[in-house]
Every structure is written in C-alpha cells, then in structure tokens.
C-alpha cells in the first residue's frame, strides 16, 4: 500500500516537474495546404476546375522547454517556421500533431485565463487601431483584458515613460513613424502584464537607435517582471545582446538549442587568423599555413582548424614578415549563415 502510494506520488511529481516549465512543446508538427495557381488568366481558370494543393511542412517535429523568466532567442531564415511556432504557442494556429502546453494551458483552447496571461507582438502586423490614436487602443485593451484601474494607470505611465512616447499616444496611429508605432504596439501588449511574451521580429525595419532602445527595454522588462520571453529576429545583434539561450530552426526542424557561446564550439571548428604583412610575398607560400580566405596586401585572412590555430600563428610569426596578427572566433553571424546555407565553414 505504501509502496503503491509512493509510486503514485512519484508519477505525480514527475508529471509536475514536466509541467514545471512555462512552455512545453514536444514533437510539434504543422503543415499548411497551399493551393497552387498557374500564372495568368488561363491559370486562374484552370485552378477553378482543378485546384492543386501542395503540402508545406512549416514545423516538422519541434520539441522545446522554456522555464519561467527565460529570454530565448529564436532564429532562422525566412520561412523556417519561427512565426508558425509562435502562432501555435499563442493559440492562433491549430497544429497537426504534438503536445503544446503554455502556462499549463493548451493554447488551442484559447481559454480567457490563458489569453489574459500571454501577448504576441508581431513586428509586421499592427494591433493598434489604425484610424485612432494609440491611447484608444490602450483604453480598449484595459476593458478587454479587465485590467484594474490602478494597475492600468501604473503600467501605462511606466511603459510610456520608459519608451518615451508621451508625445505620440494622442496622435492618430497611421501618422506615427514605424519606431513610434512599434513602441506603442509593445505598450498595448504589455498593459495586462503578460507572463509569457512572444515577440516576433519586434525590431524589423527600425533604425539602429530605435533598435537599441527597444532592445534595452526588452531586457529591462524581462529582468524586472520575470516574464518569459521568446524573441525572433533577423538581426543577430538583437539575439546576441538579449538572449543567453538561443534556438535555431530551419525548414521546420530544430538545429540547435543551447547557450549562445556553444554555437561557436559546436558549429565552428575553425578560427580566423588575420595578419598584416610587412612586405608583399608570394601568396602561394601562405597556403601552407592554412586556407587563405582573403588576400589583399597587406591584409591576409586565414581559416585554420581550431586545434592548430596557435601553431599556425607561431609558424606565421617565425617565417613571414608580419606586422600584426590576430586570432579570432568566427563571428556568430557567419556561423549561422553557414549553418543555414548548409555549407562547410572551411
């Protein structure tokens, strides 16, 4: 009897541990049916009679777990399945198979208690009412999300001050600049203090200064509110600056899930040695050291195997007229680009 109870307790606790993470996804799959139409008038007519569908696997067996308070970067090329995953997590899309739980809810059921605790911000879509000033959207969200008056006032004031948009929240949304609008979008999504925040390319199309400002804000927000954030972006800078953990996805599959630093170790078995030559020499001689990536006198860039990097460097210093030498890691941008294009780094 006791043994039985213990066993049962064990099951319960392991279940709880499993549910512990805020976001739990296992083996998520989503296929889109895309109808194909041949170009031109005749093509449209043909497609009326005989429509051809093609299945596109947007997400193909993704599993991941994200704990409370984590800020995770989700990267991948266009059409990798990032946005689709976020849409499944926020209950917009019905997935084919797999298990998804966010805050213990099945997003697909779109329960009010669930929706009140999440927010999805899409850089390319607006939720602000186009013809009305942002403050109208804020007020509407207050009512829709049933935010208590006091909390609403505090949140609004804090967010507006942090993002420095005091002057624009009373101007018609369509007259705002992209940067101003994006900030207001964020405010509209954060008024109800969501526990889980999905940010889909929030910095897209913004200038460098606004990008930085938004980034600083997201970091501060995450630290202060302990909210769980998934951020997708095309800009490596966003991810590099904000996220300790990144998830790389391509063609609907997970390529990498781990710490940012680990990417370098995992995918880049090479280092970069760049030297400045004191004298012009025959480039063929340099080939002995390693693969020459770039040669434009006086600058030479080598790719050498990680293990032999220091040896190659000393060899260079001994046998060549070197003015300056640097050993660097391959930039993350390059690694990721190479990972996506499937090319070997060397």
């Amino acid at each position: 009897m006791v043994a039985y109870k213990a066993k049962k307790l064990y099951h319960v606790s392991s279940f709880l541990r499993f549910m512990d993470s805020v976001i739990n996804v296992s083996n998520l799959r989503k296929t889109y049916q895309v109808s194909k139409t041949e170009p031109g008038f005749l093509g449209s007519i043909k497609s009326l009679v005989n429509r051809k569908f093609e299945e596109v696997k947007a997400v193909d067996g993704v599993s991941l777990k994200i704990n409370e308070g984590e800020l995770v970067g989700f990267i991948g090329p266009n059409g990798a399945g990032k946005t689709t995953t976020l849409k499944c997590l926020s209950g917009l899309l019905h997935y084919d198979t797999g298990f998804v739980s966010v805050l213990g809810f099945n997003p697909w059921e779109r329960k009010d208690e669930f929706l009140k605790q999440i927010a999805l911000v899409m850089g390319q879509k607006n939720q602000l009412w186009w013809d009305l000033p942002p403050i109208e959207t804020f007020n509407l969200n207050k009512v829709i999300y049933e935010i208590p008056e006091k909390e609403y006032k505090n949140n609004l004031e804090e967010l507006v001050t942090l993002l420095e948009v005091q002057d624009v929240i009373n101007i018609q949304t369509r007259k705002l600049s992209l940067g101003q609008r994006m900030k207001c979008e964020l405010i509209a999504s954060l008024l109800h203090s969501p526990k889980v925040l999905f940010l889909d390319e929030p910095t897209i199309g913004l200038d460098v200064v606004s990008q930085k400002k938004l980034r600083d804000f997201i970091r501060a927000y995450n630290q202060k509110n302990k909210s769980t954030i998934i951020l997708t972006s095309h800009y490596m800078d966003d991810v590099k600056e904000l996220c300790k953990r990144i998830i790389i996805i391509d063609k609907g599959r997970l390529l990498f899930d781990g710490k940012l630093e680990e990417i370098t170790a995992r995918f880049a078995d090479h280092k970069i040695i760049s030297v400045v030559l004191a004298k012009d020499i025959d480039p063929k001689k340099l080939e002995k050291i390693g693969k020459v990536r770039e040669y434009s006198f006086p600058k030479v860039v080598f790719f050498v195997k990680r293990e032999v990097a220091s040896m190659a460097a000393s060899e260079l210093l001994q046998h060549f007229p070197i003015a300056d030498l640097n050993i660097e890691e391959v930039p993350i941008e390059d690694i990721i680009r190479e990972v996506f294009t499937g090319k070997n780094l060397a």
Partner: protein
Amino acid sequence: MIKKYVHIFKITFEEYFAYRLNFFLWRFRSFVSFFALVIFWLAVYGPGENVFGYERSQMATYLIGVAFLRSLVLASRSFEISRHIRQGELSRYLLWPIGIKSFWFGRDLADKSINLVFAFFEIGLVMLTLKLNFYFPEKSIYYLIFFVLILLSILLYYFLSFSISILAFWTEDVWATRWLLGIIFLEFLSGAFFPLDILPSWASRIIYFTPFPYLVFFPLKVWLGQVTAADSIRVLFICFFWLVFFFVLSNYLWKKGFKKYGAYGG
C-alpha cells in the same frame, strides 16, 4: 462584461468619425437610392388606385419601412470578417480574451445604431418633401409581434452574415459569395426592392421557405396589419427556426474553419 461591449461600441463609433466624409457619402448613396425607389413606386399610382393590393399610403409605408429596416436589420460590419480571415487580421482579435462572435455582434450593433440615427433624418426629409403619410397599426398586438420579429431578424441576419463571412476559411475569394448574397438574396429576396407578394404566388411561396423574407418583408407586413394572427405565429416560428439553424451552422463552420485558419501575414 457589458463594459466590454460598451467600449467596442464606442471605438466603432470613433472609427466612423475618423472617416466622416466616407460615412456621409455612404449615407448619401443610400439616401439617393431610397429617394429614387419611392419616386418610382409613387409614379405607378394614379389617384385612388390600388396596385398589387397596396394602397398608396401602404406602399409608401412599406418603402419607408424598408429604409428603416435596412439600417436596423441589414446594416452590418461582420462582413469584414472574411477580409480579416484572408489577410490574417483576425489574429489580433483571436488573442483577445473575448468571444469573437460577441465582439462582432457588438460592432454590428454600433453600425446599426449610427445608421439608424441618419436614417431617421433621411426618412423625415423624404416624407416632408413628398408629403407622404405613414401608416400606424391600430391594434397594439401588431406592435408587439413586430418588435419580437425584428429582434429575431436582427439575430438571424447576424448569424447568417457570420456564416457566410467565415466561408472565407475555405474559399479564397468571398467577393462572389458576398455579391450573390448581398445583391441577389438580401436585396431581392428579403423584399427590399418591392413587396414580395406582388410576385406570382408560386414564386412568393417558394421564397417564403428561405430565411430572407423574414428580414424585411414579413416584419413590414405585420406592421401593415396584413398578416393574420395565425399567420404571424407561423412567421415567428419559421423565423425562429432559421435563427436556430444559422446559429448552429455558424458554430459548426467556425469550429471547422478555424482549424484551417492560416494566420497569414507577419
């Protein structure tokens, strides 16, 4: 709960005022078509004549009633859902902790009330310039039946329009269905052009089986006192049947269609 709808109501209003000119032009258009329709029908009447069983004042009342019910029953925003489905704008509302159907119903109500205010002025203007008499039923029971029937028809129209709109989950082009529904069925079969009983009786009998005449034609017939007590019960019953039918259908279509929603864009 009520607060949410009041706010949706408010924001829909404000949107209209952001595009005042657009709205005034739309009202002007409906005013002109109403005016033309009345002129056309009155031209048919000689002095003291009775056309298709309608006296001049009855026909005038019918046409005024049409203008009124166009705003009260047929005015709607819910047709926008199909555009939202195609362009992925629906996502924004799906993220809200509020029922999609209630949200759009709130918006429809706002649309109806703002149109109604303008319709009152326009109707008044037409009645004054053309010196029309408006017929009021004598027995109070007709007011009651009219009122109940209008309530049913507002709901019926909403679920009908919602069901049609969410066909956008399947068809990429809803324009054709909208046109078909909007012009052929709604305007013609609901009796918004002319009273349906001027058609050959076999034709009108067929039309009575469809949900459309219960939106405009029958409420006005009740108002004119041209429906017997027994018939009004039947009319209420059929209208209610269609209401339940489209309520169930819209739920079913939503459940099925939403699975196909692609949340495109972004």
